[in-house]
C-alpha cells in the first residue's frame, strides 16, 4: 500500500503545484450557528426537554415516572448499568427482571436498556454517550427502549459548545431522539435498528 500512498500524495502535490495561491482557512464566529430562538439567556434543562419532545424523545424527571412508563407498556425485562442500578432499584417492583450483565447472545430479551449519558445538548434534545461513561454500546442500542440517565449539570446549550467539549474518548455518540428512517416513501418510521423509544431520565 505504501506505493499507493506515495502515488496519491505525489498526484495531489502536482495537482496543486500550479495554483498561484491557496485558499485561506476562514475563521468564523460561534454566533453564526446560534439559532434565532436560542439567543440570550437559555435555561438549558428546560430547552433540552422541549427539544427532546420535538424529536419524539421522552424526557422524564424521576425513577417513578420511568417505572410507570415501562409498566404501562408492559416492558418489564431489561438491562441496567451496574453502576446505576443501586440508585434505581428501589423504584422497580419485583415484577421487573433487570439484569446488570448484558448478554449479547440474547439481545432481543432486553426490552429496555438503562445506561449513563455523559451529557446532553439542549438546542437539539441530544443525549451524549461516551465509551468511558456508557457501560455497554449494545445495551444502549439493541433494546426497544433506551433510557439515558442524564445529569442536569452536564447539558450543553448548543452544538458548538458540545463540540468544544468532545475530549479524548475513543468513541462518542450523540443520540437525538429514537432511531428512524424515511426510506419507504418518505414516511417516518421510528425504531429501525436502534431504539424506538429514547428516554432521558434527568437527575441532579
Amino acid at each position, binding site marked *: 500500500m505504501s506505493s499507493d500512498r506515495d502515488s496519491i500524495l505525489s498526484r495531489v502535490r502536482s495537482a*496543486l503545484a500550479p495554483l498561484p495561491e491557496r*485558499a485561506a482557512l476562514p475563521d468564523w464566529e460561534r454566533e453564526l450557528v446560534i439559532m434565532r430562538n436560542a439567543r440570550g439567556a437559555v435555561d438549558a434543562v428546560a430547552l433540552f426537554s422541549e427539544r427532546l419532545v420535538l424529536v419524539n424523545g421522552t424526557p422524564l424527571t424521576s425513577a417513578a415516572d420511568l417505572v410507570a412508563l415501562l409498566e404501562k407498556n408492559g416492558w418489564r425485562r431489561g438491562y441496567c448499568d451496574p453502576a446505576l442500578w443501586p440508585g434505581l432499584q428501589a423504584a422497580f417492583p419485583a415484577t421487573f427482571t433487570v439484569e446488570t450483565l448484558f448478554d449479547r447472545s440474547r439481545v432481543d430479551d432486553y426490552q429496555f436498556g438503562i445506561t449513563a449519558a455523559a451529557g446532553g445538548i439542549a438546542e437539539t434534545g441530544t443525549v451524549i454517550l461516551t465509551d468511558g461513561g456508557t457501560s455497554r454500546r449494545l445495551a444502549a442500542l439493541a433494546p426497544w427502549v433506551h433510557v439515558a440517565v442524564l445529569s442536569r449539570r452536564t447539558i450543553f446549550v448548543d452544538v458548538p459548545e458540545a*463540540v468544544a467539549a*468532545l475530549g479524548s474518548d475513543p468513541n462518542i455518540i450523540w443520540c437525538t431522539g429514537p432511531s*428512524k428512517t424515511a426510506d*419507504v416513501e418518505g414516511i417516518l418510521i421510528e425504531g429501525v*435498528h436502534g431504539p424506538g423509544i429514547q428516554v432521558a431520565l434527568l437527575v441532579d
Partner: protein
Amino acid sequence: MKFQQIDQFAANLRADTRESVHSGSKAGHEKRTSVLFDHYADPNRLRQIAGEIKQHVVENLDTYLPAVEARLQANGVIVHWASTAEAANEAVYSILQARGAKKMVKAKTMVSEETELGHFLEKRGIECVETDLGEFIIQIDGDHPSHIVKPIIHKNRREIATSFERHGLGAYNDDPETITRRARAHLRHKYLEADVGLTGANFVVAESGRIVLVTNEGNSRFCLAATKCHIAMIGIEKILPRDRDLGLLLNLLARSGTGQQLTVYTEFIRGPKAAPQEDGPEETHVVFVDNGRSEVLASDCREILRCIRCGACLNVCPVYRQASGHAYRSVYPGPVGAVLSPLLAGKQFPELADLPKASSLCGACNEVCPVNIPIPDLLLRLREKGKREGSEAAAAATPPMGAWSVMATQPAAWKLAMFGGKIMNVLPAKYIPVPALQAWQAKRTLPAWRGGAFRSWLRTRAQPAADVRSAKSEG
C-alpha cells in the same frame, strides 16, 4: 441519436416512478428550506463560510493528508491508501483475510458504491450485508441507489413489499412499519454474527483524527457496537481542519440533507474501543480512497471536491425530479453527479460527457449547496470539455453553432438572416430541415418572425432615438 440520453430516459420513465422521485425530492427541498430559514437569520452566510473552509481543505490536501494520517496513527488507527477502486477493494479484502473474516456488515457509504465493494467481496466468498434500510432493499433487488441520501426514492411500498416477500422476509405486506420491523429483526442478527463493520465517513478532522459519521437508523452504530473490527472507507477530500468546524458543518449537513437539526446519530470515532467498554472494535482501519479525485483536483472543477454528499442539489433540481437518479448512469446523480461522475470517469469522460448538459442552468443547485459549490459554472466548463474532446454523447441533439457564429460576427449577414427568417411565417416547420426547430415545434409554437422590425421602427419613427448615427460607425 435523436435526443440526449437523459431526456430519452425521462421520456420512458414509468409515471409512478417519476411521481415518487418528484414528490420525494420536492418534499426534501421544502423541509430543508423551512428548517434553515426558521433557524438562522442568514443561512447563506453559513453556506459561504462552509464553502470557504472546504475549499481551503481541497487546496491544501498536500499538507492535510499526511497530517491526518499521522493523527489517526497516533490514535491507534491503521491507515491504508488506495489509488483506484480495485486497490480500495483489495485493501478491505486483505484486512478481512488477515482476520479470517467471512462476514461483513456495512453502513451506507457512497465511496463503496464507486468501488462496487459488495460485488467484489461476494465474488471472494465474503457475506457483505447492506444495513441501511434503503441500501438493503437495493441489495436484495440487485438494483442501484438513485439518490445520495434516499437510495430508494424511486421505489414505492408495493415494490418493496414484493421484494421482501421474494427474499423470504414474510408474506406480502406493504405497510412501511411492518417492512421496517422485518428489516430490524433480520438485520440485527447479521450485525451480531459479523466479523467486520464497514462504514464511510462524513468528515475526518485533521487536528484530532476524529472520524465523524452521521446516520438516522442506527445501523452504523450497530456495525460499531457488534463487530470487533471497523473499516472506514474515506475519500481523500473528506477532511475538516478543526473540531470546531464540525459545529458549522454538522448544522448544515443535517438541515440540507434531511431537514433535521441533527441526524439521530452523530458518532465521533477516534480509534479502537478502550476498556472498560466491552462492545466495539478492537481494530480500526481507515482506507483513504483516491479513485480519480486527484485528477479532479488537477482540473478546473476542483470546487466539486467540497461536496459533503447531502443531496440538497438533487432535491431542488427540476431535471433530477423529471429524470430520476438512474438516468445519470453513474453512482452520483443530479447536479453534483453531472459534474462529479464524468470527472471521476477519467478516460471514460466522453461517455458521460452528456451529463453536464442535463441542466437548464437555473442555478437552484448552487443556491442550496451547503458548501456553495458553483455547480452551473462547473457544468459549463465540462460542456466545453465535452465539446473539445469530441464526445458524441455530449453532441447528441445539440444544435451546431458554426453558422450562427459566422452570422453573429458579421452584421450584414445577421441582418440578412433577420430578413430571411420570415420564411418561417409561411413555410410549415416540418418542411424546414433544422432539427432544433423541429424539436422546438414538437412541444411549443414559435411566435411570428418579426426580424428587423425593431430596427425599422427605430429608423422611421418621428422622434429618432438619440444619436443613432453615432452608432453607425460600429460593425
